[in-house]
């Protein structure tokens, strides 16, 4: 723990100073924090538990709609806010905005957790591809259903409350950055402490051989559900923040954005190395930087460039960056390798 202290302190200081060092990049940095949260929590299922979920986007979108709805609904009639023909203009005072956001975020975290428990109970019995496809359907269905609910704007979309005027133009960027950075730190601490308990070993046991784990007396279902609920909690939180940051929620393009966010969170975790603590974080950071770069330098071709990146990842880093490093420098990961052994392996190849 002490060894890592310098590292953690450095990252924390960097994180706190980032918006002042790069004031123009606050929004990108906030999005980076959200991406890391999504990748890290996806890793609980995809990496540690071996359940490739495409459904985490459900909790993200749910959190987004819930946070915005609560933030509006606490002070104004929600139906009038989202009604497109409405002639009234509602403005949040700063106090209302922040109170609403606080309560909204709590709801955005808690409700998806409960939903994850309920859905998990019914579908976590599925394994492998069946689970992946089923969760893929969840995200798509949620997008279409929410696009038909009038009170949250339906196809019109939902404009989240504009950030109140608190004097400085930079306030909005800083507020959302620190909110997302705080969420990231919270997620990291939570995930890290979970990974140091028996819980992680159980998840790994499920990944490696679920039947055997069950035979050993582990109630796998219970742990699978709890794992998913933990992910849902943080995904919901991330969604709530993202809604406020983007300022406009569209059912399929922003909230239940399985085509982008839903796939990105998987990609980032795989790029960094699934089943590791740092993998998703590194993966998300590199991915985000590449994506932003492609956007600027390959305008119109960004998806081609992104596609090439994905192909390269899959071919050259099937185990992700962390996995690749681990294979190359096993000693640095605390693995003891016998020199003879290594030579023997090289010869075998």
């Amino acid at each position, binding site marked *: 723990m002490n060894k890592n202290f310098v590292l953690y302190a450095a990252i924390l200081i960097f994180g706190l100073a980032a918006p002042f060092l790069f004031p123009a990049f606050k929004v990108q940095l906030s999005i980076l924090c959200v991406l890391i949260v999504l990748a890290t929590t996806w890793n609980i299922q995809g990496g540690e538990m071996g359940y490739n979920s495409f459904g985490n986007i459900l909790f993200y979108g749910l959190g987004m709609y819930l946070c915005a709805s609560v933030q509006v609904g606490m002070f104004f009639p929600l139906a009038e806010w989202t009604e497109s*023909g*409405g002639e009234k203009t509602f403005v949040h005072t700063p106090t209302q905005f922040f109170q609403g956001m606080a309560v909204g975020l709590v709801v955005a975290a808690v409700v998806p957790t409960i939903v994850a428990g309920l859905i998990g109970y019914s579908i976590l019995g599925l394994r492998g591809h069946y689970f992946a496809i089923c969760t893929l359907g969840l995200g798509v269905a949620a997008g279409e259903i929410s696009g038909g609910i009038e009170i949250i704007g339906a196809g019109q979309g939902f*404009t989240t409350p504009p950030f109140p005027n608190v004097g400085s133009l930079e306030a909005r960027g800083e507020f959302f950055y620190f909110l997302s950075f705080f969420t990231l730190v919270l997620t990291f601490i939570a995930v890290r402490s979970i990974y140091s308990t028996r819980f992680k070993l159980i998840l790994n046991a499920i990944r490696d051989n679920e039947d055997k784990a069950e035979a050993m007396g582990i109630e796998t279902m219970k742990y699978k559900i709890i794992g998913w609920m933990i992910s849902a909690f943080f995904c919901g939180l991330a969604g709530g923040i993202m809604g406020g940051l983007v*300022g406009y929620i569209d059912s399929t393009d922003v909230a239940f954005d399985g085509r982008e966010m839903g796939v990105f969170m998987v990609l980032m975790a795989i790029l960094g190395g699934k089943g590791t603590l740092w993998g998703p974080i590194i993966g998300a950071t590199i991915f985000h930087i590449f994506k932003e770069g492609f956007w600027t330098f390959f305008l119109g071709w*960004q998806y081609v460039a992104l596609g090439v990146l994905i192909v390269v990842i899959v071919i050259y880093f099937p185990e992700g960056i962390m996995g690749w490093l681990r294979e190359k420098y096993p000693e640095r990961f605390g693995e003891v390798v016998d020199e003879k052994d290594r030579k023997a392996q090289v010869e075998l190849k």
Partner: protein
Amino acid sequence: MKLNKIILSFVSALVILFSTSVASFAKVVGDKIILGAAISLTGKYSSNGVHTQNGYNMAVDRINSMGGVKVGGKTYKFDIIYYDDESNPKRAAQLAERLISQDGVEFMLGPYSSGLTKAIAPVTEKYGVPMVEANGASRSLFTKGYKYLFAVLAPANLYLDVAIETAVELNGGKPVRIAQAFEQDAFSQDVRLGILDAAERTGSKIIIDDKLPKELNDMAATLVKVKQMKPDVLVVSGHTKGALTAIRQIAEMKVDVPMLAMTHCDAAKLSKQHGKNSQYALCASQWHKSLTYKDDFFKDGMTYAADFEKEFGYDPPYQSAESSAALLVFKDAFERANSFDQKKVRDALAATNMQTFYGNIKFAPGGQNVDKPMVLFQVMCDASGSCENKVVAPLKWASAKLIHPIPKWSER
């Protein structure tokens, strides 16, 4: 411990990368006024995004070659920084932020579609960046109290209510039965609200009210109902894809309906793509080349259409025309403000009162253009099978008489 070193060096690499990538433009560099725009070059709105971009580019070239913009005794030329928003509101909002805070853009042009404009408007509003947009028609854009948003087009709820009124009139003033199907997006849903208003006003009844998914490829279920219930009017709106899908399936299923009212016929190049199948479709349009508005840069609609066709190889849809008009508005405002101060330019924009080849432009306090009515045109084909869009309403500009009711498929 070694692992920590790797991560630490990674973090420091990140710091270097971020700090070297800060490139800053200013809004006015040398003799250039740099405008920013996020446009849908890919994704579901890509065809209309390109129409928008072509419209912008055409006007930039024209204004620059005809003397540019004169501010403070100096001549400036327009330049536009484009980004691709991928038809995604999340991306559009990010790009707006990026254009303003990273690229230093101080004046913006709008994206394509109401949804994306809705995502960008809060950002431009926050920074006090004047935005003239040409493709966000949703009424809710103009009720949010935005001060820096100006739309050269009429709001979406006015698109097709004329069609309903015309149908009632042709029905001897008696209410009609309406079937409607709209895509789940901000613009189409607003068109729907307009129809609801018109129906209430005329006492008409809505017998089918369907919502269609985005990226509209199939509306057979709605058309089956239309066949069964035989409404007097069928209203469909779903951007370019919606228009194409509707015509394709109506022809395939031989759906007979006395009046078919749509949006985006010209953007979808219906008369070219579907020829005679698209005949009789009644379309709402912000602009038509046969209208008689005039200005100094493009002369009139016919000249604009000819020049546009020469440059881009197709007849300009209204999306291109209104986009070109946005730049004329900006030029006019810069010259009247005689300054690049954002507040002054904003005030000049608010006081705009001008005529362009596209129509009169005068902004209401909400930012929408209140001085330009919508037109309705009908796709009409001659015996040789070549089709053309002809204005049928309002009567002032009508170049043909509305054909009503649409002949049955068995009689065509």
